[in-house]
């Protein structure tokens, strides 16, 4: 089998930073070639070179053996390279059909052929097993549905090469499964598929070959048969990673720190939920199961309409994030870029933001607990890597940004009793993941309650002391530490709700 795509000796530097250093890569028709690497390893840069967003400094790209040099994404697209982007590139106020055809609208006598658009969009979505209406506005879709539209958009062109950059990051396990099936089908149709993922089980499930990049260099490319998860991880991190998931707490959890009884809202029904000091409660569920709504309710972002919330036994009112913060809840948002960082402010100011938000408005920004030494200490404690904590946070990698945001809440130590982590490791590389799990465990061991809301099943199972599974706005059931992924999935799908769920409610 010959390679459809070949990239030889690709180098790309930004200023003095070498993002790619003589990387070789190829992909054959009908294979899934997975690229693994930490954030900043150069995966996205390599794909941007392929997609025509960047021009390489050195090396060449060959498509069907012919050298190509893309000046603009338009050319790459025309050449049959199709990319499902990690960052959603959709238009919220346009319909699904219009989005799928962005830039490739069919015309008839010079006019948009909307009927053809609708029909072809429908058949694409059907192929993806989705029933989204083609005339729905994208703004009205869930994140998972938007991801499907994104994939449909990439499939529109009869791609020779299909690049999927963490396509399952936003999907829950169920949707991720159907996506993987689809990838398998496309493979049999002879498409060369380049697949980027941080989810190791997924990698092992679909890969034909695996390539590992590190620090902009090609480490190795091997057949799936010849690799193990451990080997991949070791190559990515550059050392052996032990104890990926930290050991569970040695002591029994203490008294309940956070209690919700009778919680109701537009998206939630009958929420009775508690988290005790020293435990990590994992909240699992499908997209739209209400687990996101639960997180937002806990942080006062979309408050409960009825029910009672207590923190350390005291009833609290959570009607705004500010109230929640004041009540002692720390919140790590899932969408770092949109909800986490203030990109143009310094690392230090980002870490200080909550303290500054809660301090008297006219007090010094660096007074008392907000002193520069204390922030720096906190940032170093979190192992945030930056040349200078005074630089803008947007210059840091995603993992370091996430750690800085955790530091933001740690700065409020000891007045934070509950931490709510939403998708704590989405888009974060393996090494940084492990560090974040360690931190969560350390926070719990200090006597706090941790609520971890995640779509990543291995993470839920690996980290949680207790697993709460949600289904259609209700708590479907609860499972102990170390439960099987399958059991979680059954509850999430509503299959096993009857047995366990009722037990828990009583």
């Amino acid at each position, binding site marked *: 089998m010959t390679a459809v795509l070949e990239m030889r000796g690709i180098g790309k530097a*930004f*200023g*003095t*930073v070498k993002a790619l250093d003589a990387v070789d890569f190829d992909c054959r028709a009908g294979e899934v070639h997975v690229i693994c690497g930490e954030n900043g390893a150069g995966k996205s840069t390599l794909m941007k070179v392929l997609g025509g967003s960047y021009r390489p400094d050195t090396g060449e790209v060959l498509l069907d053996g012919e050298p190509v040099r893309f000046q603009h994404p338009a050319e790459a697209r025309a050449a049959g390279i199709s990319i499902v982007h990690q960052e959603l590139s959709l238009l919220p106020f346009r319909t699904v059909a219009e989005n799928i055809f962005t830039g490739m609208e069919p015309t008839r006598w010079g006019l948009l052929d909307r009927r053809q658009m609708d029909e072809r969009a429908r058949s694409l979505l059907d192929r993806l097993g989705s029933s989204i209406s083609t005339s729905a506005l994208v703004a009205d879709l869930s994140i998972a549905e938007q991801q499907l539209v994104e994939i449909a958009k990439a499939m529109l062109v009869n791609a020779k090469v299909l690049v999927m950059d963490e396509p399952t990051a936003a999907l829950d396990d169920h949707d991720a499964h159907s996506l993987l099936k689809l990838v398998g089908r496309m493979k049999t149709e002879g498409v060369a598929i380049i697949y980027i993922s941080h989810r190791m089980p997924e990698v092992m499930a679909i890969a034909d070959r695996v390539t590992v990049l590190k620090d902009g260099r090609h480490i190795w490319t091997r057949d799936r048969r010849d690799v193990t998860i451990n080997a991949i991880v070791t190559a990515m991190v550059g050392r052996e990673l032990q104890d990926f998931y930290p050991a569970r707490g040695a002591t029994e959890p203490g008294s309940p720190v956070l209690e919700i009884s009778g919680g109701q809202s537009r998206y939630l029904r009958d929420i009775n939920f508690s988290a005790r000091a020293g435990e990590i409660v994992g909240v699992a569920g499908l997209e739209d199961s209400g687990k996101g709504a639960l997180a937002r309710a806990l*942080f006062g*972002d979309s408050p409960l309409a009825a029910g009672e919330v207590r923190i350390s036994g005291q009833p609290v009112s959570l009607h*705004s*994030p*500010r109230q*929640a*913060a*004041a009540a002692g809840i720390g*919140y790590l*948002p899932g969408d770092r870029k*949109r*909800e*986490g*960082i*203030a*990109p*143009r*402010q310094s690392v230090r*100011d980002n870490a*200080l*933001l*909550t*303290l*500054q*938000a*809660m*301090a*008297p*408005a*006219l*007090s*010094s*920004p660096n007074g008392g607990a*907000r002193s520069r030494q204390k922030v720096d200490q906190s940032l170093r404690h979190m192992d945030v*890597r*930056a*040349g*200078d904590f*005074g*630089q*803008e946070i947007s*210059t*840091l990698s995603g993992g370091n940004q996430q750690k800085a945001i955790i530091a*933001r809440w740690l700065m409020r130590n000891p007045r934070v009793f509950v931490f709510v982590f939403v998708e704590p490791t989405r888009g974060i590389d393996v090494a940084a993941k492990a560090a974040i799990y360690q931190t969560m465990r350390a926070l719990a061991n200090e006597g706090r309650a941790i609520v971890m809301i995640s779509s990543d099943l291995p993470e839920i199972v690996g980290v949680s002391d207790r697993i709460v599974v949600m289904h259609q706005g209700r708590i479907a059931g609860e499972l102990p530490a170390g439960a099987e992924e399958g059991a979680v999935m059954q509850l999430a799908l509503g299959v096993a709700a009857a047995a366990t769920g009722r037990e828990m409610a009583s």
Partner: protein
Amino acid sequence: MTAISDTARATRRLSLRNINFALVIFVVLYAAIVVLQPNYLDAALFMNFLRRAAPLIILASGQLYVILSGGFDLSMGAVVTLVVLAASMLIGGDPEMTWVVIASLYAMGLAVGLANGFIVSFLKVPSIIATLGTMLLVNGLALAWSGGAPRGDLPDNFRNLGRLVLKDVPLVGSLPIAVLILVVVTLLAWWGLHATAYGKRLLAVGDNPRAAELAGVPVKPTRISAFVISALSAVTAGILIGGFSGVSVNAGRGLELQAIAACVIGGALLLGGRGTVVGALFGALSLFALFTLLNLLGLPQALRDSLQGVILIAAVGASVLRHRRST
């Protein structure tokens, strides 16, 4: 690691250059003024220059707060007009009334600022439209109240705020009251933005309101107070303008755009998140030095607009290029 510290150094150099750019423009323009008119080097004339520039600088400092929060305040000029007209009508030439009336002027400013803030924060009207609306509204109210022709008169103790020059002051020679007020206001603005937790909140809100909210920042109060500060600074500027030159119906015309321009020349990023009071100060001084220079050159009035446009494009264009090169 080395890569990161390189960029870090680059950003630090950059922020230094950011301030310097407006400063450089100012120094160059003022040097040109001095070439034409060497007596502008006299302390007294420089003080007089500052006295005249004071309202614009104060407006720019207030506008900066709104710009940093991610918005615009187009209603500033109308507030200046309102202040000048209201002062003359309420005081009616009676010096006893001055301080009471000044207090009520600030109350009016507070009301306008609150209105702007509420419309933007709660009614979710984009600030460019919201403050355009209040601009029309306030201007109309001021004119309707005065019947289109100002009534009453400003007594000397009010006028002195913008007009009086203290002579024989140690160190500086002469010292206009307006410059004293300018120094106080600029220090206050600097303190509020760079030396309080509030200032950091404001920057975060302008940078990413959603993230700021989730970090516990009271986004709406922060944003509303930015509009209030802007309106209060417009009141201060209005008092100085009324003091400097007396009552007129178009005292504030066009000042809002000049204030925005000053901030932008001073390196503030439109739509929020980056900017400094020192930058706005030198931005306003540059703009004012430009006006003075053009006066001295005796260019046709009309071309002064053109040159202002060229300077704006140059200032913003240059900062865009600098940023582009650094990333």
